[in-house]
C-alpha cells in the first residue's frame, strides 16, 4: 500500500523539519533560548505543521477527487453500443472496476505480466480465462470495450497515484523549506502555531457537521434517484410491499405503509413492556430505595443497556421466540405460527429499553425540588399520594420526553427486528404474526446486492430517509420538552 508509505515519508520529513527548525532558531539566537520570541519547541512545531497540514490536506482532497475524475473520464469512453439492453452505464462501470481490480490482483499474483495486462489488443477470452484461473471474480464475458476501459482505468489510476505521490512530497518539502526559512529569533512562532492548532481544533469540531451533511446528502441524493424510477405517491401510500429482484422495476410494489405499521406496532409493544417497568423502577429507586439498594439495582438495570443488540436479537430468535411459541403456538393457545413475531421482537426490545426509561425518568424525578414533596407531606399525604399527585405531574413533561426518546430508539432498532420479527410485510392487528420493519427491510434490500441502480436497492435509501426524519423529529421534540422542563426548576 504505497499511500501508507507516503504518509510515513511525509511524517519523516516533518520530524526532520522539526529538528532543523528548532536548531535554526536556537542558532539565530546564538544558542541562548532567552533571545527567542517563543520557546524553541514552537519553532520546530511550526516547521512540522507547515510540512504535514498542507501535504495531508492535499492527499485527502486528491484521494477524494481522483476516483470521481477517472470514473467520469472512463464512463465517457464507453460507447453507447457497449451498454447492453436492460443494463445501465453504472452497471458497466462496476464491471469495468471489477475487471480492473481482477487485472491488478492477477498481476500481483504473478499469473499475468504487467505488459500483458496493459495490452489493448489482447485476446479477450484468453484474458478472461487467466483471470478466472487466478481466482478473480469476473463476469463470464468481458467485452472488448469493457476490457479496454478497464485497462485505461488501471493506467489512469496508476498515473494518478504516481503524480499524487510526487505532488504531495513536493508540497511537504516546500512547506518544510518555507517554515525553515521563516525561522529566526524574531519570528512569532508561538502565535502562528497556536493559530494553526486552533484551526485544526475547529476542523475537528466541524466533522460533526460534515457527518450530518454526509448523511443527509447520501440519503437525499439516492432517494431522489429512487423517486425518478418509482413514483413517490406509490411509495408513501402503497399498501403492499413486494419487491421483485428478477424484473428490473415495474413489477415491484414498494409501499412503505406495511413497514411503518410493523415498525410502530413493534415499538408500541416494546413501550408497553418498557414504560411501566422502567417508570415504576425509577420511582422506587428515586423515592423509596435505600442508598445501598440503589447503588446495586441501578447499575444492574443499566447493564441491560450496555448489552449489544445482536445479543438481544439472538435472545429473541432462540429463546423468547420458542418460549412464546410453546405458550401461544399450536400446542398451546394456537394463536402463533412461528417463533418470529411482533410479540417476540416487541418484548425483547422492551427489555432493552427498560434502562433507557428508568435512567432518564430517575434523573427527572430527582430533579423535582424537595420543597414540593415536603409541602405535600406537610398536608398529610402519604408517600405514594405525594408521588402520584405532586412528583409525577411535576415530572410529567420530562417523563414524556424520556418515553419519546425510548420510542425513537425502538423505531431505529435493527438487529432485534431483523432476527426476531420475521420478514413478511403485512398489515395485521394480530401481535402473534410475523411482521417486518423499516430497518429490517433496509438491511435486506442492501445486503448482498452491489447494484445500486435498481429501484429495489434504492428504495432502502428512501426508507432510510423516512427513518432519519422520523427519529430526528422525535428526538428534537423530546429534547425540547426535556430542556424546557428542566429550566422550570433550575
Amino acid at each position: 500500500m504505497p499511500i501508507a508509505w507516503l504518509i510515513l515519508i511525509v511524517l519523516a520529513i516533518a520530524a526532520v523539519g522539526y529538528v532543523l527548525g528548532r536548531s535554526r532558531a536556537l542558532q539565530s539566537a546564538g544558542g541562548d533560548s532567552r533571545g527567542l520570541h517563543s520557546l524553541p519547541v514552537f519553532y520546530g512545531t511550526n516547521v512540522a505543521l507547515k510540512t504535514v497540514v498542507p501535504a495531508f490536506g492535499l492527499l485527502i482532497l486528491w484521494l477524494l477527487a481522483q476516483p470521481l475524475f477517472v470514473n467520469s473520464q472512463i464512463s465517457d469512453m464507453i460507447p453507447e453500443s457497449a451498454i447492453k439492453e436492460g443494463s445501465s452505464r453504472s452497471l458497466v462501470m462496476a464491471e469495468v472496476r471489477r475487471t480492473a481490480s481482477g487485472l491488478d490482483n492477477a498481476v500481483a499474483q504473478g499469473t499475468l505480466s504487467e505488459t500483458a495486462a496493459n495490452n489493448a489488443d489482447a485476446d479477450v477470452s484468453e484474458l478472461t480465462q487467466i483471470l478466472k484461473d487466478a481466482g478473480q471474480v469476473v463476469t463470464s464475458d468481458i467485452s472488448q470495450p469493457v476490457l479496454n476501459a478497464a485497462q485505461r482505468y488501471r493506467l489512469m489510476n496508476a498515473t494518478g497515484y504516481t503524480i499524487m505521490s510526487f505532488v504531495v512530497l513536493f508540497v511537504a518539502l516546500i512547506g518544510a523549506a518555507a517554515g525553515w526559512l521563516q525561522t529566526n529569533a524574531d519570528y512569532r512562532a508561538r502565535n502562528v502555531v497556536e493559530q494553526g492548532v486552533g484551526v485544526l481544533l475547529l476542523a475537528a469540531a466541524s466533522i460533526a457537521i460534515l457527518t450530518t451533511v454526509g448523511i443527509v446528502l447520501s440519503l437525499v441524493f439516492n432517494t431522489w434517484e429512487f423517486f425518478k424510477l418509482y413514483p413517490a405517491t406509490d411509495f408513501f401510500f402503497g399498501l403492499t410491499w413486494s419487491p421483485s429482484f428478477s424484473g428490473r422495476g415495474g413489477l415491484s410494489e414498494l409501499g412503505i405503509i406495511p413497514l411503518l405499521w410493523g415498525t410502530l406496532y413493534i415499538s408500541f409493544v416494546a413501550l408497553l413492556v418498557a414504560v411501566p417497568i422502567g417508570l415504576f423502577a425509577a420511582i422506587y429507586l428515586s423515592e423509596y430505595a435505600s442508598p445501598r439498594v440503589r447503588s446495586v439495582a441501578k447499575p444492574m438495570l443499566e447493564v441491560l443497556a450496555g448489552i449489544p443488540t445482536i445479543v438481544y436479537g439472538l435472545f429473541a430468535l432462540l429463546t423468547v421466540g420458542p418460549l412464546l411459541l410453546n405458550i401461544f403456538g399450536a400446542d398451546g393457545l394456537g394463536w402463533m405460527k412461528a417463533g418470529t413475531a411482533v410479540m417476540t421482537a416487541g418484548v425483547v426490545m422492551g427489555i432493552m429499553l427498560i434502562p433507557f426509561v428508568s435512567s432518564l425518568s430517575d434523573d427527572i424525578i430527582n430533579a423535582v425540588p424537595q420543597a414540593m414533596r415536603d409541602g405535600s407531606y406537610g398536608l398529610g399525604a402519604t408517600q405514594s399520594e405525594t408521588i402520584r399527585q405532586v412528583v409525577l405531574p411535576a415530572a410529567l413533561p420530562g417523563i414524556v420526553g424520556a418515553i419519546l426518546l425510548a420510542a425513537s430508539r425502538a423505531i431505529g432498532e435493527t438487529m432485534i427486528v431483523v432476527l426476531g420479527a420475521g420478514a413478511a410485510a403485512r398489515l395485521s392487528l394480530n401481535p402473534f404474526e410475523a411482521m417486518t420493519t423499516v430497518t429490517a427491510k433496509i438491511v435486506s434490500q442492501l445486503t448482498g446486492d452491489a447494484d445500486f441502480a435498481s429501484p429495489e436497492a434504492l428504495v432502502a435509501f428512501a426508507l432510510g430517509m423516512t427513518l432519519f426524519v422520523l427519529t430526528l423529529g422525535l428526538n428534537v421534540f423530546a429534547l425540547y420538552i426535556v430542556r424546557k422542563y428542566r429550566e422550570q426548576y433550575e
Partner: protein
Amino acid sequence: MTDASMQSPETGRHAASLTATDARTIKRAKAEKRFRTYGIVAIATGLFFLVVLFASILSQGIPAFQRTVVSVDFTLTEQQREEAESTLFKTKAYSDLFIAALNKELTERGVEVDFDDAAIERLLGKVGGTIRTFYAENPDQLGQPIEFDLAASSRVDGYFKGRVSRDTLQDSRFLQLSDLDLVDALKEAGIIKQGFNWPFITGADSGVDNPGGAGIGASVVGSFFMMMVVLVLSLPIGVAASIYLEEFAPQNKFTDLIEVNISNLAAVPSIVFGILGLAVFIQFMHLPQSAPLVGGLVLTLMTLPTIIISTRASLKAVPPSIRDAALGVGASKMQAVFHHVLPLAAPGILTGTIIGLAQALGETAPLLLIGMVGFVARGYPDGFLAGFTEPNSAMPAQIYTWAARADVGFYEKAWGGIIILLMFLLTMNIIAIILRRRFERRW
C-alpha cells in the same frame, strides 16, 4: 385512592379516634403498600430479565467451547498421498483413507458393535481437508504414525451435548440410530472423546455445511483492526473537537450548529450510519467492501458523539482555578489547556473512550450494510496493512451470520461467540471502571 370523590361525608370524619384507625386510613396505608410493591416488582422483573438473559447465554453458549473429537493414530505413506492427490475429489480420497484406517483399528480392537465404512463416515466431520492441509504443510511426517484429533460430525457432537438424543433421532443420511451404539462403543474405547474447543477460539469461519469447524478467531482479528481504526481516528478528533467547543468556541451561530449536530448524531439510528458508510465510502469513494477499514470509519463517526460528550464533561470538571493559575504565570491559552487542563482530564477522557469503543465493538447493523455478512471469512489477513483492507468479518457480524444459517449447529456457535464478545466488553468496562476509581480526582 384519594380522589375528590372519596371525601364524601360518609367517611365519618368526625368519628375518627387516635387509637382506632378508620377505614380510610387503612385503605390509604394499603394503597401505599401496593404502590411500593409495584416498584419492587418492576425492579425485580428487570433483574429477572437480566438473569434469564445471562442464563440463556451461558447455558447455550458454553457447549460451544467443548468439542467432540475422534482421536486415531494414522499413517499416510508417500504413495498413498500421491494416489490421493491424483484423484478428482482429493479431500474425499483422504477421508476414505482415514476411514479405512479407523475401520482397521476398530476391527483390531474388537469393537463388538456392527459397523461399516458408511457408519464411520457419518460419525466424522469433514476430515479430509484437515488431513490434506496437515500433510501439505508437514510433508516430512509422511510415513510416520501421527495421532490425529479430528472433529466428529455435528450430530455426534450434539449427541454428546444432549442436543440429539436416541428418542428424537430420526434415521437420515447424516446419522442413524444404530450409529449411536457405535458412538457409545467408541467412547468406551477412548477413541471418541470430548475436549476443549481450541479451534473455535482460534479458527476462522467454515462453510455453511460444517458447523463443527467454525471458529471466531478471524473475526476477532477483524474486530481488532476495526477498533484500531476507531481508536486512532476518534480519540484525537473527539478530543480536539471537545477542546474547541469547551475552551475556545465563541458564542455564535456556528458553535450552536456544531452543538446541535453532535447531540442529534448521538441519537441517529446506527443503521443510518451504515447507509452513510455504504453511500460515501463504498459507492462514492470505492473503498473495498467488507474491509475493517470501512467498518472502522463508519464506527468512528458513530462513536465520535459519545467520546465528545464524555470528554467535554471531564474537561468541564477541571476547575477554572487551574486555567487561571496557568494564565497567571504567563502561559498562553493554548498552553494552559494542553499542559494543565488536558492531563488532568485525561483519566476521564480515557474512560469515555473505552466505553465508546466497547459500544462500537458490539455494533452490528452498520456492518451488515457495508458487506460484512453473506460471505465466509475463511482466514486470517496476510499481514498488518492487509488486515485493514482485506475483506474480513467482525465479531457481531460473524454472530449474525451464524444465527442466520439454517443448520442448528451454528446456533451454539453464535451463543459461544456472544460469550466471547461479552467477555471483551466486560474487560473493557472493568478497565474503564478501574481507571475511573484509580485516577479520577474530585475537586
